[in-house]
Every structure is written in structure tokens, then in C-alpha cells.
């Protein structure tokens, strides 16, 4: 855990509580009020629960082969977890594919533990093995907390994934003519009260791609990046993107490369 980040988070939380306890409070802007609310939640992020669960899953013998995931190669060599999150999606020679964290985890679950990857990909979020994939992703991400994004772009397929992702980002469709860019291509915009990260460049430390997986306060669920993208497309009024499908991975490559240098705070807490 990055000490500075932790200290900053605690300071913010303390400030939030202190502010909340100062009574009577003068008229506060809506923005200040929301900032205070967020600060009060920052200390005690339920993502911790999923992080602990994910770590347990990584080290537990599971699946038809009764194996752990401790030999899983997330791009830094078998079993290396720290630092992996901030370099994904990337090219993997064994699968001949660019993979994001979750699709890579599923590959490991198939090859090491004997699970059926296609079956997991078909499973709904929040059910069956998908729950475990999310928890694993939460833990793997947490192991890179405080590190800076630095996706490799050396392989032609990594470059191609970026280019595909960029095009998908701007792809307009659906009943409402929305694309990812409709909401995420300008600075300082928001939907309702939610700030929208600018995703066509580095949106800053702990923002956008550097914040997910995140605990969603609104439904009390842990959301991985795959689910984040899935729900973006739902609200874009698009049809359903397959789990780990080429466009979801490519969008990850696009956002991840754009976020180069951004410090990861994942798993974060979100509205």
C-alpha cells in the first residue's frame, strides 16, 4: 500500500468527519456537500472485503484440477501479481491474444484449475464464478495500488488493440446516438452530479481507468472494469458486449495507454 495515498485518504476522511461535526454549518454548495459525503465514505471502503476474498481465492486449490492460481502469469511471469494490473491489457503469447485482467484471470482459471472459460464468460456478473473473477481482479488491482499505468505497446497486436479501442470509443450507435465519447471526451463534464473522467488522454491519478475495480455504493456491488464497460454500453442503449470480447479489451487498451503515468487507486469507491 502506498503510504502517501493512505495518508492522503485518511486525511481527507478525517477532514470530512471534522467538517461534518462542525455545527451549525453555513450554506454549503452542492459540490462541497457531495465532496464531504465522499470523504466520509473513503475510510471504510467495502472493496476491502472483496480484496481479502480475492487473495484467498488466488491461494486456494479450486476447480477440476484442484490447483491454486499461484502460477498464473499476468504478464510479469508466473505468480507475479504486484505491478501486473498497471500493464494490462497486454499481448500474451500463449493465447495469441491481447488480454485484459479479467480475461487473463479466466485463462488462468481454465489452464491451471480446469474451469471452462467459455462457461465463465457466459455467466452473468455477480453470479457463479464471475463473483470470484471480480474478487480476484479486485485483489490483483489492489496489489498495484499507488503504481503508475504503463501498458506495453511494443507488440503489433497491442498497437492494433489501441487503434481498435480508439475507434470503438468514438463509435456512435444505439437508439440515442451515444458513443463513449459522448460523455468522456471533454474536460470537466458531469452526468447529474457525477464527474465524468476525460478518457481520451490521461485523466489524472486515480481517475477513470485508474479507479476500477470499484465498490459501487448505489447497489453495494463490486464492479470490475468489464462490468463497468458493460453497464456503460447498457446506458448507451447498445446491445450486450460479450465478456472479454475484442472491443471490451480494446477499450481497456485505449484507456490504459491513454492513462500512462496515472497512479492507480483501484479498488476505489464510487457512487
Amino acid at each position, binding site marked *: 500500500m502506498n503510504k502517501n495515498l493512505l495518508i492522503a485518504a485518511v486525511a481527507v476522511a478525517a477532514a470530512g468527519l471534522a467538517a461534518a461535526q462542525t455545527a451549525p454549518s453555513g450554506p454549503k454548495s*452542492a459540490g462541497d456537500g457531495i465532496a464531504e459525503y465522499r470523504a466520509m465514505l473513503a475510510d471504510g471502503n467495502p472493496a476491502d472485503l472483496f480484496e481479502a476474498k480475492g487473495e484467498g481465492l488466488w491461494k486456494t486449490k479450486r476447480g477440476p484440477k484442484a490447483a491454486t492460481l499461484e502460477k498464473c502469469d499476468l504478464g510479469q511471469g508466473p505468480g507475479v501479481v504486484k505491478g501486473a494490473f498497471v500493464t494490462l491489457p497486454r499481448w500474451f503469447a500463449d493465447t*495469441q*491474444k*491481447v488480454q485484459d485482467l479479467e480475461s487473463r484471470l479466466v485463462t488462468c482459471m481454465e489452464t491451471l484449475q480446469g474451469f471452462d472459460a467459455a462457461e465463465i464468460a457466459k455467466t452473468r456478473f455477480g453470479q457463479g464464478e464471475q463473483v470470484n473473477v471480480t474478487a480476484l481482479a479486485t485483489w490483483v488491482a489492489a496489489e498495484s495500488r499507488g503504481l503508475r499505468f504503463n501498458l506495453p505497446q511494443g507488440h*503489433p*497486436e497491442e*498497437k*492494433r488493440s489501441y*487503434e*481498435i479501442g*480508439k*475507434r*470503438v470509443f*468514438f*463509435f*456512435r*450507435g*444505439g*437508439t*440515442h*446516438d*451515444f*458513443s463513449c*465519447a*459522448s*460523455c468522456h*471526451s*471533454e474536460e*470537466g*463534464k*458531469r*452526468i*447529474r*452530479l457525477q464527474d*465524468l473522467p476525460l478518457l*481520451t488522454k490521461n485523466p489524472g491519478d486515480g481517475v477513470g481507468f485508474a479507479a476500477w475495480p470499484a465498490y459501487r455504493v448505489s447497489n453495494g456491488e463490486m464492479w470490475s472494469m468489464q462490468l463497468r464497460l458493460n453497464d456503460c*454500453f*447498457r*446506458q448507451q*442503449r*447498445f*446491445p*450486450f*458486449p*460479450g465478456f472479454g*470480447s*475484442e*472491443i*471490451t479489451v*480494446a477499450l481497456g487498451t485505449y484507456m490504459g495507454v491513454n492513462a500512462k503515468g496515472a497512479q492507480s487507486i483501484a479498488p476505489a469507491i464510487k457512487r
Partner: protein
Amino acid sequence: MKHLPSPTLASAAAVVALAAVGALLAGCATGPSEAELDRQALAAVQASFRDQGIAKVDRIKQDLGQSACSSDKPPSDAVAERISAQARATMKWPTGGQYFGDFREGERIAQSGRGMTWTDTSTATSANGGNCYNCHQISKTEISYGTIGPSLYNYGKNRGVTDIMAATAQPIVEYTWMKIYNGKTYNACSNMPRFGHAGLLDEKQMAHLMSLLLDPRSPVNQ
């Protein structure tokens, strides 16, 4: 150049063929051409989505406006004009000139962000909201509003509308209807959904929104 198409890509064979041609033309030194990447992206989109509930894959079949506005660069003036011309040609004015409804109903529709997602069960206009507050400030009392679109607070007042039935108000009334019905009439790549054209809201619902924006009694104009 060694080009390795993703095995998951649908119509992989076709893409490989195209990629090979593209690579030859590009002289092997660089990756696939821009046009080639455009084709691959389209193929990836087609391969990656599936039907879910009311959200069918036909929704990713783009019309001219959607495809021409799918890049970080705006379309050429000529294409933009074609999009707007199409929008004007398909514009429908309200039956019997009924531009207005009830601003209270308008507020309700403006508040609702529902409709047309794969978790919605009906594509009927009655199931849909206008999503207005997602992007616009409207009534002063609603502090939870988005900023993707311009503020619409005092929309009618700022435009000098004191009587929505007055002849002097007619141009702004028609303009507003057009914006709601099909905003591409004025701005080919507008972010605003085409509520009338796409069948998201019916005439009555749009008339309620008209009242919300233009009626001097509406909270918007206080």
C-alpha cells in the same frame, strides 16, 4: 510486417485477407492503414455484441449521421450538410400545431433517465424518460444536473418568451421543437438524442417538455 489478427475476430478470414492487402499497400514498414483499422474495428464491433432483451444488435447498424460522427474529427462540411438536410427532410411538426402540454409532466419526463436499455422491458415511448437532467440544468430547484449540454434554466425567459401563443414566439417555439425532435437539424454531430426521429418520445411527451422550457409559468422560467 507480421500481422497477427486476433483469433476471436469474426470474419477473421476476410479481415486477414484485407490486412494482407493493406500491409502490401503500406509497404510492410508500418501497421495496418487507417482505413484497414476502420474496417477491423467495425468487424470487432459486429463480433463483440449480442442481443439482450429489447437491445438487439441492429442498434449498432449505423446510419449516415452515426457513422460520420464516429471519430475524433468532425465530418466534412458537405457530409454534415447532408446529415442536417436528411434531418430537416424527415422532421415532423406536431399534429394540429399542438406544441404545448403541461410543464409539470415535462418536469417528470425531464427527470426520468429511463428507457431503451436491455434492462427495460418495453420500447414503447411511455416507458421512456427524456434523460434531460443527465446533461442539462433545467429547474433551479434540481441541483443534481449534468453539464454535457448547456443550461436550460430560464430557457424561455432568456429568449423573451412571455406568451407561448404569440406570433413573436413562433420562431423559438419551432426551433425548440426541432432541437427535441432531431437536434441534428442544426448540428450534424449533436450529442443530443433524436427524441422524435428515433421514436423515443411521442408528440405529447415532447409537448410537455416544450412547456417545461418555454411556458412562463414553468419553474424553468422563474
